[in-house]
């Protein structure tokens, strides 16, 4: 049994490596993205084997799902701008770099290989499964307010990290808006009637699933990020199926949604400190509701942010040169 599973592990590992290589080597960029998504799913599978269902869920939803969608959208955009949509293969764009000599590439390859060997040596010599936070987490679980250790870590023990993670998302969306500003309106990939109908059908269910995943995070694998990703998928569908068209008037609301999670998280963190506690130190009885509040708000923010990252442009801003009255919004 164990040996069989180990064999499976080995094969999966090789498959993952093969997919990674293939994703870098394959000529067609579309195929590359497909390889990458497959790679992500295999990774998630591997993590399930490593007893990390939360991570696997996050990887499948965000690392693979959202990233894949973003890559595909970008690929579509690039091909549309280049006028190569009609071609059967999506080939690499050629940046105006000069050719790097093969010798240099080979040298880099050799050095990367040696680095891998070195790191592997270090990994093998490390005390695998050695010291960790297990005991500390187990001790602190009763006071955490939640039952699922990963959620406890995310929203209580290391809530500061999580806050900053949401801040990263906020920074990303600001940066994306900044970069994409005054870019001509690009239609999202045309999905057609089927998608639209599919979207209308699936949406309510997906919302329910998302909220459940969020809720379940308190006791079982799942949580804000995964839930947010599911909800974001809803947003993606909405956007792609033109059920929802971002309008200029929604900008303020969008901004509000983006910062909602951060604001609530920050507010709670600081407010609990009012009573002489440390920042993020939830009062004993209020831990669960506060965490749930934060999780909920963060989920909404994440969903909105991920959708916005996918959509790219700030809603409603007209492409240049019509855009002259920003100050009067």
């Amino acid at each position, binding site marked *: 049994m164990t040996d069989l599973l180990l064999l499976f592990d080995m094969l999966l590992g090789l498959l993952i490596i093969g997919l990674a290589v293939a994703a870098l080597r394959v000529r067609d960029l579309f195929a590359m993205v497909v390889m990458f998504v497959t790679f992500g799913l295999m990774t998630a599978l591997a993590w399930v084997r490593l007893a990390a269902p939360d991570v696997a869920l996050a990887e499948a939803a965000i690392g693979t799902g959202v990233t894949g969608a973003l890559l595909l959208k970008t690929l579509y955009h690039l091909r549309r701008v280049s006028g190569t949509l009609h071609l059967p293969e999506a080939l690499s764009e050629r940046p105006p770099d000069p050719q790097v000599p093969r010798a240099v590439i080979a040298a880099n390859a050799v050095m990367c290989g040696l680095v891998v060997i070195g790191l592997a040596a270090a990994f093998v010599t490390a005390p695998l499964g*050695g010291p960790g936070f297990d005991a500390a987490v187990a001790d602190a679980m009763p006071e955490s307010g939640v039952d699922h250790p990963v959620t406890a870590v995310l929203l209580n023990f290391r809530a500061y990290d999580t806050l900053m993670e949401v801040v990263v998302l906020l920074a990303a969306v600001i940066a994306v808006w*900044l970069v994409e500003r005054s870019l001509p309106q690009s239609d999202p990939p045309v999905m057609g009637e089927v998608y639209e109908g599919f979207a209308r059908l699936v949406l309510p269910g997906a919302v329910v699933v998302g909220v459940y995943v969020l809720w379940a995070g308190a006791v079982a694998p799942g949580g804000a990020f995964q839930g947010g990703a599911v909800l974001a998928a809803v947003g993606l569908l909405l956007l792609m199926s033109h059920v929802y068209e971002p309008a200029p008037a929604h900008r303020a609301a969008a901004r509000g949604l983006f910062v909602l999670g951060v604001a609530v998280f920050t507010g709670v963190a600081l407010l609990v400190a009012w009573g002489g506690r440390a920042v993020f130190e939830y009062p004993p009885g209020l831990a669960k509701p506060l965490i749930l509040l934060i999780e909920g708000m963060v989920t909404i923010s994440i969903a909105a942010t991920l959708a916005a990252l996918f959509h790219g442009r700030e809603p409603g801003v007209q492409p240049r040169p019509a855009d002259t009255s920003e100050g009067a919004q």
Partner: protein
Amino acid sequence: MTEPLQFWMVALLFLPLIGAIAAFVLPRHAPIVGMGVALGVTGAAVGLCWQVQSVGTGTVALGGWGAPLGINLHVDGLSAAMLAMTAGVGAVVSMGAVNTFGGRVARSAETARPRQYFWPLWLLLLTGLNGVYLGTDIFNLYVMIEVIALAAVGLTVLSGSLAALRAGLDYMFASILGALLLLMGVGFVYLQLGRLDFGGLAGADPSGALVAALALMFVGLALKTALFPLHFWLPAAHANATAPASALLSALVVKAALYIIVRLLQHMPAPGEALVVLMGLMGTGAILWGSVQALRADRLKLLVAWSTVTQIGLIFVALAQAGVAGLAHSWKAAAVLILAHGVAKGAMFLAAGRIRAEVGHDRIRDLDRSPVRPALAQLAFAFAAVSLIGLPPSLGFIGKWMVMEGALAAGNWHWVVITMTGTLFSLAYFSRVFAGFLRFDRVEADVPGGVVEQRGRAPMDYAPLALAALGVALGLVAAPILEFLEIGRAGGWP
């Protein structure tokens, strides 16, 4: 939270964050919010420094858990000094930015857009920087430098020009890679120790995993701080950003990664002698190559950007000056140089931006053709250059003094020679600019009344001038600064 020290720490962390939220949600009031927050952060930094000076180090256990399970914020002399430098430079840059990105009515679409994104990005950047200086957990530091990286890339591409976007993408790639190397390093640290706080690192015995972690983290951070030969992304990024953004990037952003390196050297098992020498060699390469490129640079901001490369190199030479054994003291020289460079480079980029704005271009070759000479901006530039060259009594001079002193004491003559070479080089490339300021026989314009030195004298010039003058004058109070830096680790490493 009852202690004022801890209050200031938390304030430094959350004030810019709240400011960023506000600036993002209320784009029209962003300049006021930004300026207010910048000043507030400065006040908080002053309060913090005051507290540190009077009570010493401080710790906040976030969530009440405490390391290693939770995350601690910690402040000592070095962090406080970094926070103060960041806040001060940030405030001055904000003043400069109010001019560039301020005002209620945008002058054109091209300035309107950057205006509403600059402030939230900058405040997020400030959040990240403060978080780095307060942080004690290496994974948290990873998240923080990601915050910094995304905000910094945003600032880089603020102008939206093709060059800026290209530079920004290169910067982005370098940033991501650097951060991922750090993350990998974090993984190895966890493998070995099972904990991620500095306290855990400090007591660790050397091992293979920690070696791997050190290698990965050092290279990743060197990439982020643009240490030669990993500097390839920096000049274009810093030269093509708008002036306030360049000032922030050059004066503050690269310092975060540098600070983490200093902290890692402090807390991790002592590195080998060879690694320290390698750091010195890389610094030497930076000094030489950066100087040569600065001599060749055709644009003012590019020159200033290359000067950043050389200064980073100098800071690494400062770290390496006395070998492993000397690290316990040489970090002070590096810290002084970091502070000096932050102050001077911020002023210099702002001044360069002002010169460009007044003259209409920043081609060094043609600076002397312009009939317009923004005298105060030029003076600010010159003051900043004095500090960067390391002429007395500037803080840069004190830094170089300490480098050379330490190197001499350790018998490392070569670092003295390198430092002096770098000084001569910096003199050479800055004097190119001075010649452009002071030469008058090439002016090609029939301006009534001849050369206009007074034109381009604007109130906002006083901000960089004051900052640059501060950089020069701080050298005179180096002793208190050094004493302050040593708070928390009197006599070297803890």
